[in-house]
C-alpha cells in the first residue's frame, strides 16, 4: 500500500528530499497548528488543571489528586453521571431509531417528498433555547395544547419538566424533534442503496419488511453507526436544553445569573456538562471542573473506541474474513 504523501524520494537526493519535506510540512502546517492549538493544547491543559486548585483569576496551585478524591464524596457528581448515562442510552437509541424511521417513511413516499423532507428537517435549524421553550409551552400542564388535548379524553398530562420522572423523557422529545440533520443523512444513505439489490431480493420472494431488514439496514449500517456515535457525543454534551428546560420548569426561565435553578426538578436535568459548568463558572472551581472534563473525555473516548471496534468487527464479518 502506498500513498502519495508517504512516498520517499530516491536516496542521494538530499536537497530534493528536504524540499519535499518542507512542502509536506507547509501543506499540513495549518491543519497541524489548528489541531495543536484548538485540540491538543486545551486537552493537555485540562488534564494539567485537573491536578490543581484554580479559581479562574489566580494562577493554579498544584493539589495532586485532591480533585479526583473529591469525586468520591460528591453526591451531585453521581447524579450527573447517572443522568448523562440515561441520555447516552435512551437518547442514542431513540434518536437513531426515530431518524431511521422517518427517513424510511420519506424514502417510500411517492409525492410531496420535498415538502415533507423540508418540514422534518426545519426544526433542526431552530435555536436550542427557542426550541426548548416552544416545547415547554406546548407540554405545559394546566392549559398547554397537549394537556388540553389529553383532557378531552379525561387523561391528565404528565408534568413533563416539573416531574423528575418525566423531565428527561421531555428533553428527549425535544432532541427527537430537532433530529432532522441525522434524518437527512440516513435518508441520503437509504436512497443510495443500489436498486438491483432490492430487485434481486424481490425475485427471491422478499416482501417490503424483509427487503428493509436484509437489504436496506445492512447497506446503510455504517451511516447508522455514524448516527449512533454522533448521538452518543450529543448525549454526553447535552447542556442547553437541560438548562433551559430546568429553568423554565422551575419558573425562572427569564431570571438572570445564579437565580436560575440548575437541575430542576430534583436534579433530574443536571447533566454532566451542566454540573461541570456549575463547578467551573458558578462555584469558581475550575480545577475540579477540569477533573470532571478529563473523566468525561476518558468515558467518551472509551465509548467511541468500543463502537468503532464493534463496527469494524461487523464489517469484517459481513465481508467474510477477519481484517478484510
Amino acid at each position: 500500500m502506498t500513498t502519495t504523501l508517504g512516498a520517499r524520494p530516491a536516496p542521494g537526493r538530499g536537497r530534493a528530499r528536504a524540499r519535499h519535506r518542507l512542502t509536506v510540512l507547509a501543506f499540513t502546517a495549518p491543519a497541524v497548528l489548528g489541531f495543536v492549538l484548538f485540540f491538543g493544547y486545551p486537552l493537555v491543559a485540562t488534564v494539567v488543571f485537573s491536578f490543581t486548585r484554580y479559581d479562574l483569576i489566580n494562577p493554579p496551585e498544584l493539589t495532586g489528586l485532591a480533585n479526583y478524591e473529591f469525586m468520591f464524596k460528591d453526591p451531585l457528581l453521581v447524579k450527573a453521571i447517572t443522568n448523562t448515562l440515561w441520555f447516552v442510552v435512551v437518547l442514542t437509541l431513540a434518536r437513531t431509531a426515530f431518524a431511521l424511521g422517518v427517513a424510511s417513511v420519506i424514502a417510500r413516499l411517492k409525492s410531496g417528498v420535498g415538502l415533507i423532507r423540508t418540514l422534518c428537517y426545519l426544526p433542526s435549524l431552530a435555536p436550542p433555547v427557542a426550541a426548548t421553550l416552544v416545547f415547554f409551552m406546548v407540554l405545559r400542564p394546566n392549559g398547554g395544547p397537549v394537556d388540553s388535548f389529553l383532557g378531552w379524553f379525561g387523561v391528565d398530562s404528565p408534568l413533563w419538566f416539573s416531574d423528575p420522572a418525566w423531565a428527561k423523557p421531555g428533553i428527549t422529545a425535544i432532541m427527537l424533534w430537532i433530529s432532522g440533520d441525522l434524518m437527512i443523512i440516513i435518508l441520503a444513505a437509504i436512497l443510495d442503496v443500489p436498486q438491483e439489490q432490492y430487485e434481486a431480493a424481490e425475485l427471491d420472494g422478499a416482501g417490503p419488511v424483509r427487503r428493509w431488514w436484509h437489504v436496506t439496514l445492512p447497506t446503510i449500517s455504517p451511516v447508522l453507526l455514524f448516527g449512533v456515535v454522533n448521538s452518543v457525543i450529543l448525549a454526553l454534551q447535552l447542556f442547553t436544553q437541560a438548562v433551559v428546560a430546568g429553568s423554565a420548569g422551575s419558573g425562572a426561565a427569564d431570571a438572570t445569573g445564579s437565580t436560575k435553578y440548575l437541575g430542576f426538578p430534583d436534579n433530574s436535568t443536571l447533566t454532566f456538562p451542566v454540573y461541570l459548568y456549575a463547578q467551573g463558572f458558578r462555584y469558581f472551581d475550575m480545577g475540579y471542573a477540569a477533573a470532571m472534563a478529563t473523566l468525561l473525555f476518558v468515558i467518551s473516548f472509551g465509548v467511541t473506541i468500543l463502537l468503532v471496534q464493534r463496527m469494524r468487527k461487523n464489517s469484517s464479518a459481513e465481508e467474510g474474513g477477519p481484517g478484510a
Partner: protein
Amino acid sequence: MRKHTRAALLCVTAALTLTACAAGKGGGSTSEAAAAPGQDDKLTLTVWSNFSDREYGEVTKALKTFNQKFPNIEIKHEGSQDDDKITAGIRSGNTPDVALSFTTDNIGQFCSSGAFQPLKAYIDRDKVDMDQINPAVREYTEYKGNRCAMPMLTDVYAMYYNEDMLAAAGITAPPKTMDELYDAAVKATKRAPNGDIEVAGYLPTMGFYANRPTILAPYFDAAWETADGKSALATSPGWTEMMTFQKKLVDFYGHDALERFRAGLGQEYSADHAFHQGKIAIMVDGEYRTAFLKAQAPQVRFRTAPFPTLKADQYGTAFTTGTIMGIPKGAKNPGAAWELIKHLSFDTDTIVGLANAIKNVPSTKAALESPKLEVDEAFKTFVDLARSDKLKGNPVTPIGDAHIKAVTDFSVSYQSGQVPDLAAGLKGVDQNIDDQIAKSGK
C-alpha cells in the same frame, strides 16, 4: 516509542507554559489607592452591567450624572454583561473600569480571588462615611473584612398579599407570624370540585420564585454559619423550623396536587406571574415587584407588609441583597473608577433618581430620608424595612451559590417525602457545604 514520549513531554511542557501565561493575565490589583483623575485628564471609563432594556437606559442616565463632577470623563456603559463575562474579561485583559454585578452570591469569590480590587485604601483616603450604609448591606459587599465592592441601591424582601383574596377568606389583617401565615394560606386556598388547586394561599415550594433559602432564612432566624465558620444547618434551629413549616403546608395541599398546580404557573419575570394572575394570594418578593405589578397587572389590588417571622418579636426582619459595584483586576483607570463608584454609592440625588426610576430601595441613610424619594403605600414597607436595624444580608461564601443549591435540593427532597430523618439530612448538607468550602481553599 521514544519519539512519542518526546512529543508527549513537549505537549505537556507547552501546555504548562501556556497555562501559566493564561492564568497570569489580567493585570494586577493593588491595595494602594490610585490617584483621582485631574480635571483636565481626558479619559473614558468603561462600565459593564447586566441591565437591559428600560433599566439599561435609566442606569446610563445615572452614570451620566458623574459628568457634573468630571465633565472630562466619558462614560461607556455596556449592558447584558453577566459575571461569567466579567471573569472572562479579567482573564483576557479586556477589563472594564467598573463592573456591576447582580449576583451577590459571588462576592466571596470576587473579594478573595482579587477579581475585584480592595477598596479600603480609597475609603480611608477619602474618609468615606460607611455608616451611611446599613450594616446588612455592608455585609454583602465584603468578604472576611476585605471590602471589594459597594452597593448600587438594594433589594429588600417583604410580603405581598392580594387584598381581595384575603378579604374573601375572612382575613382582616396580614399575618405576622408563621402560624398566622399557615392559617391564612389554608383559608385563602381554593380548590376545584375534583380537588385540584385553583388558588394557593401561599405556595411553600423551595426554589419557586423568590422562595430561596437565602431570602427565607432571616424570617426563621436560621443562621448559615456557626461561630467557627462551619455550616450551621443542623445546629441552627431555624432551618428545621423552616423545613417543617414548608412540609406542613405541602402536606395540606398534597404534594402531587401542589406540583401539578405549580407546574402550570407562569415565569417569575413575565406578565404570567402567578400573583399577577391571581393564582396565589400571598408571596415573598422584592420591592421591584411593585413596579412590575403596576405595569403588568394594574387590576390586582395588593398590599405589602413585612414577611411573617417564626417568633413574634422578630417581626419586621427582612432580607436584603442588591447590585454591587467593583473595580476589576486590571482596570485601566482605577482612580477614576473609584470616583464613579463613590458617586453612585453616596451622591444622594443620583441614588434617589435611580431608585425612583427602577424602583429599587436606596442604599444610604441620606437617600432613604430624601424628600425626593417617591414612596407610595406599597413601596413604603420596603423603605421602612431598609431604615430598620433588622435587615439581614446575603450569606457570603467563596463557592458561589453552591451552598444555596445544596439547601434548595435538600428542601425539595424533604418536601416530597424522600427524607426520613430531617436532622440527619441537614447534617449531610452541612458536611457537603463544608467539604466544598474546604475544597476552595479559602
